[in-house]
């Protein structure tokens, strides 16, 4: 078998050399020295330095094993002593249909098998046309090729049909010789985010946090032994990136108490972005999810609080659970002491037997060092609130008086404090006033009033407030 393969190669030099058979058992790759820089928004910059043996003058070089999701318009190639004549990205795929299309006018061999004896006969044929059916000429006979006609054997493959999309560059070299050539391109299909494992000890008020970068490769290509750099940021691209924004300010869905910090982390920066280089070269296999540690902090102070935000005029039939919020900081003093790339924080607590159990997760945006974080992890089974509209009446042409009652219950054995926010005080109208309330509120902004409601253990508390509004 080896014998005839070798013979085939000799007979068909043009076809066989570029796509030679790999004799080893290990998947070989045409990739050279790889550097991969991965951004958060499904984008990577790939630098691939290969040794190119260039003849003097013009030559066409094919680059196999580039990312299958390459953005071919972003390719640049630099090779010492060689100029680029043109770059091509060919994606005319080799298939039985395209092969027959390109063989119109060419000669093929028809191999027919006698079903009774198994004897094969060979006839030369010419492909006349392939329009919704293949017409061949065998000697003086014109036939429509059907699958009973026999096996069609093509003498060669058309040069521009490819098994997979192929990048090729035509170079003009001043002299012959092998030299390093660096291929740079952008690719889709590579991205990363951070994942945090936070173990919360409620009694001690401490949080242990491990941070992992999680990179995913869906390009369809494996990157071998790549020097890998992760950029914490979504670089601007024409087709846009979408990045979670910092929860804070008004009209935001999250709990109150998030505030971006102003400290600089001791990490390498590039422009506005933090860089996370991986310590060693790594192979990023196709369809792989890879995690590498970047943060390990033990015993950062943290506290659990309760929060509920009631939309304007909300009345419920049944009491609902308030949010459980985990508060901590990313500052150097009394915090995690690092900038936190965007990702998901998963919070665990130990059960009665000491095994960590999952209690909820929350996404965070890119978080500078020194930030205050207040992350909702879930809702409290035992702490509930029932907001009702007690009274609502028109007091003049356009002014209304609304009395809200919020009944809070606590089935826990300890007293708790719930931060209760009434939102929607500054919708399309203005000058909302609280004319009467059972305990003082803080008007944290035009839209929200906040009460700190203490509920005794196994007890109930209620807040009433009368709002004078334009609607």
């Amino acid at each position, binding site marked *: 078998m080896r014998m005839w393969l070798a013979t085939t190669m000799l007979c068909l030099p043009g076809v066989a050399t570029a796509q030679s058979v790999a004799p080893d058992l290990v998947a070989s790759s045409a990739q050279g020295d790889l550097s991969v820089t991965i951004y958060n928004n499904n984008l990577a910059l790939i630098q691939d330095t290969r040794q190119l043996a260039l003849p003097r003058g013009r030559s066409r070089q094919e680059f196999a094993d580039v990312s299958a999701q390459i953005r071919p318009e972003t390719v640049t190639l630099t090779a010492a002593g060689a100029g680029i004549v043109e770059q091509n990205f060919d994606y005319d795929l080799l298939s039985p249909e395209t092969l027959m299309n390109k063989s119109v006018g060419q000669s093929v061999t028809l191999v027919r098998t006698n079903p009774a004896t*198994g004897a094969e006969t060979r006839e030369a044929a010419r492909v006349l046309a392939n329009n919704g059916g293949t017409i061949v000429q065998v000697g003086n006979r014109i036939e429509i090729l059907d699958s009973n006609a026999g096996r069609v054997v093509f003498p060669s493959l058309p040069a521009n049909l490819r098994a997979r999309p192929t990048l090729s560059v035509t170079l003009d070299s001043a002299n012959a010789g092998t030299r390093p050539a660096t291929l740079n391109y952008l690719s889709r299909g590579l991205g990363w985010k951070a994942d945090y494992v936070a173990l919360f000890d409620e009694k001690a008020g401490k949080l242990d946090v491990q941070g992992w970068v999680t990179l995913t490769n869906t390009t369809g290509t494996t990157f071998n032994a790549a020097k890998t750099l992760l950029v914490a940021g979504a670089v601007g691209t024409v087709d846009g990136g979408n990045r979670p924004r910092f929860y804070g300010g008004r009209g935001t869905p999250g709990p109150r108490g998030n505030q971006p910090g102003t400290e600089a982390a001791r990490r390498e920066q590039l422009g506005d972005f933090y860089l996370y280089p991986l310590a060693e070269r790594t192979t990023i296999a196709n369809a792989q999810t890879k995690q590498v540690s970047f943060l390990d902090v033990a015993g950062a102070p943290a506290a659990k609080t309760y929060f509920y935000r009631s939309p304007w005029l909300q009345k419920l039939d049944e009491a609902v659970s308030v949010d459980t919020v985990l508060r901590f900081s990313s500052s150097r003093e009394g915090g995690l002491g690092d900038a936190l790339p965007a990702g998901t924080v998963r919070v665990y607590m130990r059960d009665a037997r000491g095994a960590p159990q999952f209690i909820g997760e929350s996404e965070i945006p890119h978080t500078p060092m020194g930030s205050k974080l207040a992350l909702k992890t879930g809702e409290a089974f035992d702490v509930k609130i029932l907001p009702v509209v007690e009274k609502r009446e028109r007091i003049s042409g356009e002014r209304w008086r609304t009395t809200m009652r919020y009944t809070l219950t606590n089935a826990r054995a300890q007293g708790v404090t719930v931060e209760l926010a009434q939102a929607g005080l500054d919708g399309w109208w203005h000058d909302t006033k609280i004319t009467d309330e059972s305990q003082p509120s803080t008007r944290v902004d035009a839209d929200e009033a906040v009460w700190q409601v203490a509920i005794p253990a196994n007890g109930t508390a209620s807040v009433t407030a009368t709002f004078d509004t334009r609607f």
Partner: protein
Amino acid sequence: MRRVLRWMVALLVGALASAATAQTVSPAPDRVAVTIYRAPRRAPDQAIDRAWLQGYALITEQRRVTIPAGRTTLRFEGVAAGILPESAIVTGLPKGVREKNLDADLLSPRSLYAGSFGRPVTIRRTIARRIVEEEAILRSGPDGAAILQTRDGFIAADCAPSQDALVYNRVPPTLAAKLTLSVELDSPAAASVTVTLSYLAWGFDWQANYVATLRPDGQSADLLAWVTLASSDTTSFANAETMVVAGAVKREDSAPNPAWNVPDESLTFRCFAQPIVAAPAMVFAPPPPAPAPAPMEMDVVVTGTRLRRAMVQQEDLGDLKLYRVPDRTTVAALAQKQVALLDRAAVPVSIVYVSTVDSNGDADAPRITLRLRNRTDQGLGVPLPAGPVALFQPRGDTALLIGEGAIADKAVGEEVEAGVAEATQVTIESTNPESGKGWEAYRLTARNANPYPVRFEARFAGEDLPRMARMTETLTRKDGKAVWSVEIPANGSRSFSYRIKDRD
């Protein structure tokens, strides 16, 4: 013999892998704990969808492994198929973890073809019951399958009278049979350690199921509750410490539908542009059988008498409630299981017929509602996780179903109500006997066709109360609503008339 074979296979696998690092395989966990969380957005009255379980589980495994000194890849086999790789935590290794990998490039007809590009294969032709083999080299990608180079030239496989199949001589080294989680280690010395691996996985769900059986007095009921848990994962967790968590846990993403996003891993041999072929003789094959339902094992654990029933044990987990199944049990693949949650005899309850009245005087048909107080002095006083409630009434020796409702998570001290059925013997009629400038008068008549008295409640929105006048009955305030609560005598009726001012 078998051992030798396995050793040879291991050797071969070792040779296939990139040969740089040693490999240690942990085939299965030694001890496993499974904590199941309810589907995040499933309403209390929404049934578990066994075809698409949208809850998840935290799986904690203990594995005893022996790792060599130096660089090693430690592969964990037998993890849940629904694993979220980004949630994996590995502890107990002597010198930490360099990186964790989840490889999902699986061996399939398509990937086998793609990974054999440029490599020798054998074409096996079957023509007229004769099999002929020929050596060839793969020359196309899987989207252009299959073009092969033979001794004669280039051919398209399966595009001639013969039936062709490809025979490969190896598996591409990077392709794995199943999703595999592995960690890269760097150990200073060989060691035998116990590794704890934990991760979240989609494809689980659980709920509480309540069965209330009324006592003949109608004033109390026997309350029985089950934890119903289900797994749609293909991995079984045998002899597992099993827990469920009640309460709302925040998740940022949701369970993928197993019927979607399945990559097409099949391989199709294509042929030249539509050749003209003789139409094959029409054969009317019987329609394919309907797909068999997924094999679901219904494993209902019912043990002994009331006192001996194995009951889950509840503990607080932060602001959530954790229930521990007392004995180790198997969380089987594609299976549902029930364990007792609660068993209380003669809990005081009341049956109330509840109707809601809107500000236009329209009243809903009364619903039969089971009401109880979740308090210790009322025979209960335990957290009640969300789930359906079935109400039974005794009839001779048996009990018949009256209706089914559902409750949300209920804490200790709360009032619990479940509307279980629309009443047929208790009715409400609303009439509008007169109206005037800026007001309407309504008259509600509640009738009871039962030979026994019933408790009836009509509920009005609390903010309607200031506009109501000339009421013939006194309303009470409860949870923001105004309530007309009345006992209707056996085969009797009661009425309530009022005026309501038009809204400004």
